[in-house]
């Protein structure tokens, strides 16, 4: 019997996810911690460094398929992207283009740019975006998994939406500005970052699935993420992997429609009702599989 702690994606560290999500013993790391490539900026600020700069990259097998993978460690500076961290992501993505694996999986858990590293971190994130699109242009699908405690925010939220598909758990969160940033910038009347139910209604996996931003919603288990990642890899082969003009225009149409229909809505539950969910107040308490069954007919952006 596997305990909750052993099966939970949320509770696992980045390295535990790599060990448990992929075929046993298959993960081969590029630039492992023993290489000691650490942030050059944090030391100057007299701050602790990590030997992997908060991300592990490499290749692995997923049910026999060869995949390239990155896993961000939310426990180190909230998974934030510094210069080395970003360079590792970009290097892995560029190597994927050379070696043509079956897919690239991004296990994202991050607050976005590591502000200690300022411009170097911002540039790194923009390079990651470009590299993701280059991988897709090479015909290799990129799948993002979002289910860590720190969510996926800032520039890395944009990176997630540059992929072919996003798999989320209910506990996962995805957005541009995080709750505290919105509250700080616009006031607690605009957004109360301490209202955890509101935070999850606004950024959580179920809301993202209902809006069509996430393509799969799974329970918080490593096995469920594994199965969903496999399904998304297989589904990717039936659609254009590269970002096409038609896909971009369809996405813009979806966003325009969303803004026109729901731009005035103040509360996510109102939006859920407006798209046709008859009992929106019941959604937050539903198990993932029941939820998916209930909303699949009405969720936006279903392809």
């Amino acid at each position, binding site marked *: 019997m596997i305990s909750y702690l052993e099966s939970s994606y949320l509770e696992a560290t980045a390295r535990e996810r790599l060990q448990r999500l992929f075929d046993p013993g298959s993960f081969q790391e590029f630039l492992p*911690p*023993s290489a000691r490539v650490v942030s050059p900026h944090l*030391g100057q600020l007299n*701050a*602790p*460094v*990590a*030997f*992997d700069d908060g991300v592990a990259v490499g290749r692995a097998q997923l049910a026999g398929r060869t995949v390239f993978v990155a896993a961000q460690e939310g426990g180190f500076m909230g998974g934030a992207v510094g210069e080395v961290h970003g360079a590792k992501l970009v290097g892995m993505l560029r190597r994927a283009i050379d070696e043509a694996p079956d897919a690239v999986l991004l296990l994202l858990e991050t607050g976005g740019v590591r502000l200690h590293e300022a411009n170097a971190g911002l540039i790194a994130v923009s390079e990651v975006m470009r590299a993701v699109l280059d991988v897709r242009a090479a015909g290799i699908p990129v799948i993002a998994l979002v289910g860590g405690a720190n969510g996926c925010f800032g520039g890395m939220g944009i990176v997630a939406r540059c992929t072919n598909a996003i798999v989320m758990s209910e506990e996962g969160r995805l957005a541009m500005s995080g709750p505290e940033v919105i509250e700080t910038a616009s006031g607690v009347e605009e957004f109360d970052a301490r209202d955890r139910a509101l935070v999850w209604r606004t950024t959580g996996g179920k809301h993202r699935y209902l809006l069509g931003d996430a393509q799969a919603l799974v329970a918080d288990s490593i096995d469920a993420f594994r199965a969903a990642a496999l399904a998304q890899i297989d589904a990717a082969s039936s659609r254009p992997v590269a970002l096409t003009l038609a896909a971009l225009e369809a996405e813009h149409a979806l966003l325009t429609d969303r803004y026109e229909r729901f731009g005035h809505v103040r509360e996510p539950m109102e939006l859920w009702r407006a798209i046709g969910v008859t009992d929106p107040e019941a959604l937050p308490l539903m198990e993932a599989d029941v939820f998916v069954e209930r909303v699949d007919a009405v969720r936006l952006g279903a392809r």
Partner: protein
Amino acid sequence: MEHLTYVFKGGTRTLARQADVVGVVGSGNLEVLIESAPLEGDCSIAIATAAEGFGAIWEAVMTDFQARWQLRDARIAINDMGATPAVVSLRLDQAVETMLEAR
């Protein structure tokens, strides 16, 4: 940041070749990078810690650790963000156990 180094001689237990890392550099936590290295029998431990002024406690915890495991030709590096002595000992034991399992 404070940097501390301890070198222990006379250990008897060698480790698997492969390097391993356990733990995460988060608040009250630390990461331990452990690897076997040709150090003429020494066990070398290098610590970078955000909590300054605790050298005496680190020395006691490291001495206890080496007394438990008697490592030789081992290099250990620690990035610490204010872990308590109990957490430090736990992570060090995890690191050694991971290396012994890999053999």
